[in-house]
């Protein structure tokens, strides 16, 4: 990278010599990936059987729905917003799918596009409220969360198991990767969503407008970017991803239940933040979110392998990571300004 010494602000004064120069944009991402590698290495050294391909593939298989939801959340957070309704929309999707397939006998091939459309519509409505009436995203999606969970309860308060052969077939299908290793259909969908998200964020006008809004909404407006429609589409995308996450969850759980994905919004936000996306918007990468999800997964796996630690340590560990990354973000912001 060439540097114009007279015009570039000297921001690298404090950096230790001898270290490879990393563009400040990639620092959070580097931290995230290094953390994942360190945790994987620690696990491999501490526990027998940890260092196996399937252990790592399971990270993706077990967290496919979280990954899909978190990609949608990444876009929302990049604009400086937040979507608290994602967990509830996932639950609503499982509920509608189970109800239609099991009780109304609708074909799964009809149900799946239908629930995706419902999710997208739900997100669009929230985006419209945020954009048109300048409401805080936080409170709009909070109400959306209540609404979606409430609708779940209206369908049924009991869990509905899904026995339809199409769902069980997809649930059991595996994509072999050589050796004993394999991926589930859900994991493949999650990877496709990550790739699609990366392309959307990097190579489209929509994606770049998302970043511009996160940097300065007023400037984006003055630059003539389609701020309003992009904001609405961001929430639509998040709704769509949530619904897709819900579909994937029906493959995973083979049931619809109003208490599915309780607190998933917190996990998704945590994954995005740990993935290096700035909560105030404007900075971050979709690939980082993938690693954020993998880190959340590996914490759980480490606790399972350890055996002596109880499950609630997951939440505490996630909280601590969230704290550390939020502090890092503040430092990052402070250094920029």
């Amino acid at each position: 990278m060439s540097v114009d010494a007279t015009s570039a602000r000297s921001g690298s004064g404090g950096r230790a010599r001898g270290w490879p120069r990393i563009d400040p944009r990639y620092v959070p991402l580097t931290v995230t990936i290094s953390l994942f590698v360190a945790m994987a290495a620690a696990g491999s050294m501490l526990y027998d059987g940890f260092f196996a391909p399937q252990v790592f593939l399971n990270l993706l298989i077990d967290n496919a729905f979280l990954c899909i939801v978190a990609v949608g959340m990444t876009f929302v957070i990049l604009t400086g917003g937040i979507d608290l309704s994602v967990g509830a929309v996932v639950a609503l999707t499982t509920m509608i799918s189970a109800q239609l397939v099991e009780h109304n006998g609708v074909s799964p091939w009809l149900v799946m596009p239908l629930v995706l459309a419902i999710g997208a519509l739900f997100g669009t409505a929230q985006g419209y409220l945020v954009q048109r009436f300048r409401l805080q995203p936080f409170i709009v999606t909070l109400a959306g969360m209540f609404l979606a969970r409430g609708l779940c309860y209206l369908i049924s308060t009991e869990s509905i198991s899904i026995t339809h052969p199409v769902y069980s077939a997809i649930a059991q299908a595996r994509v072999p990767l050589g050796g004993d290793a394999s991926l589930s259909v859900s994991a493949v969908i999650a990877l496709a969503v990550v790739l699609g998200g990366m392309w959307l964020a990097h190579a489209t006008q929509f994606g770049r407008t998302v970043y511009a809004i996160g940097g300065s909404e007023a400037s984006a407006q003055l630059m003539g970017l389609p701020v309003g429609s992009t904001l609405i589409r961001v929430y639509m995308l998040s709704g769509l991803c949530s619904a897709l996450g819900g579909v994937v969850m029906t493959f995973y759980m083979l049931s619809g239940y109003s208490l599915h994905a309780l607190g998933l919004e917190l996990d998704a936000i945590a994954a995005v933040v740990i993935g290096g996306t700035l909560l105030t918007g404007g900075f971050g990468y979709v690939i980082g979110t993938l690693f954020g999800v993998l880190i959340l997964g590996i914490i759980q796996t480490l606790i399972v392998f350890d055996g002596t630690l109880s499950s609630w340590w997951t939440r505490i560990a996630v909280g601590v990571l969230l704290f550390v990354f939020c502090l890092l973000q503040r430092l990052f912001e402070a250094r920029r300004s």
Partner: protein
Amino acid sequence: MAAEAECVLSARGIRRTFPGVRALDNVELQLRAGEIHALMGQNGAGKSTLIKVLTGVHAPDSGSIELEGRPIRPASPLHAQQLGISTVYQEVNLCPNLTVAENIFAGRYPRRPWWRGGGIDWQAVEREARRLLTALQIDIEVTRLLSSYPVAIQQMIAIARATSVAARVLILDEPTSSLDADEVRQLFAVLDRLRRQGMAILFVTHFLEQVYAISDRITVLRNGSFVGEYRTSELSREALIAAMIGGAIAPATSASDTRDASDEVRSAPVLQAQGIARKGQLQATDFAVEAGEVVGIAGLLGSGRTELARLLFGLDAADSGAIVIAGQRAALHSPADAIACGLALCPEERKTEGLIADLSVRENIVLALQARAGLVPYLSREKQEAIAERFVAALGIKSASLETPVGQLSGGNQQKVLLARWLATEPRVLILDEPTRGIDIAAKQEIMNEIVALARAGMALVFISAEIEEVVRLADRIVVMRDRRKVGELPGGCGEHAVYEMIARH
């Protein structure tokens, strides 16, 4: 240059009224291709309203705007931009988190054909951005973030973006306010190149020197009216100032005139700063003010005058140096500490840093007094009213009642409420940062008389103003600042010219 260049933009008979104010009255403006046109006027002359009319923020009540002979009615800044009128503001309206190239092309990226993967053609974006910047002879790396460049460069990038959309007219609204001399030179080089390419440029600034350095013509506004259009080469500085000010303002009674007899009250400084500095804001500066003295701080925008006031008041923490108040070394970590030491500051930004708009006049007046006292004892309602009433009467604050939200008052009365808030704390030192900005002449005069009266009563005053003429008129001693440091001191009544000379010499 041709004798009479083609007129690109012409605005005639522009009127615009706001409730209670005639902001623009029958204003004319002609911009010609290949010319830089300066728009001059004091604060409140109507410059920013005129720009807002041209860029579609406000619609004119009457009058016509023609662009290359066709009448236009810009409805929004975006619409104006599409018509060919691009604007670059003092605060850069770009996205700091995007690269330079992206900021130039955001919204109109070249796309890759579908057989090459579709999406944005980043190579073309970078290539085009480089070409564009090279044409303006700006040598920077386009793949770096906008925020990694100083404001001056960001300003030029904004110009590059503005000119790349086939603009015919470029409006620059005080682009040089936060730039240093070297950066201004770079910016002017870019403007000069654009001028030679045939762009019509409107340049708004406060700085006379810059007007004479770069502009071809000058339009002067005063109190919302059109004063005249002049060729820069044919207009002397004195004539320009006369056009802007429009006759002499009644001189205020100067503190130095009336205080000569009371020189014996002079004592050790109440407030003294020894080499206080803050990285990027102020270089090591000494400063002192005595009881009964008005010290003026003169300097251009960005000279560090506001920064000095903020450090003295503990609003920003100094990196080095010491502050001594009444002989005692004071550690000021917050304004609350400074207030406890008997300091007071009327900040530059009245609305954002001074008043609590939704609170009443009474609450705004007692706020600092109560904050110094802490949560308890809470001043009784009667005491609050008594204090507020006293200052409303003493300063002549015009308000429907003590319970009127202060945001509903006029600028001059708001400033007086702010002054009242600090006088209620009976400070030893009162720092006034631009107390007369944006208020009408009568209120201005009243506030300046009040300052003199306060000094006569033994208070130490620090008076900061962009209007150097005001500083000269009021101060016993003038501290001259430039480029974030103090360059010297002058005695009161030394004349504006001496101040300008000192600023220019250093």
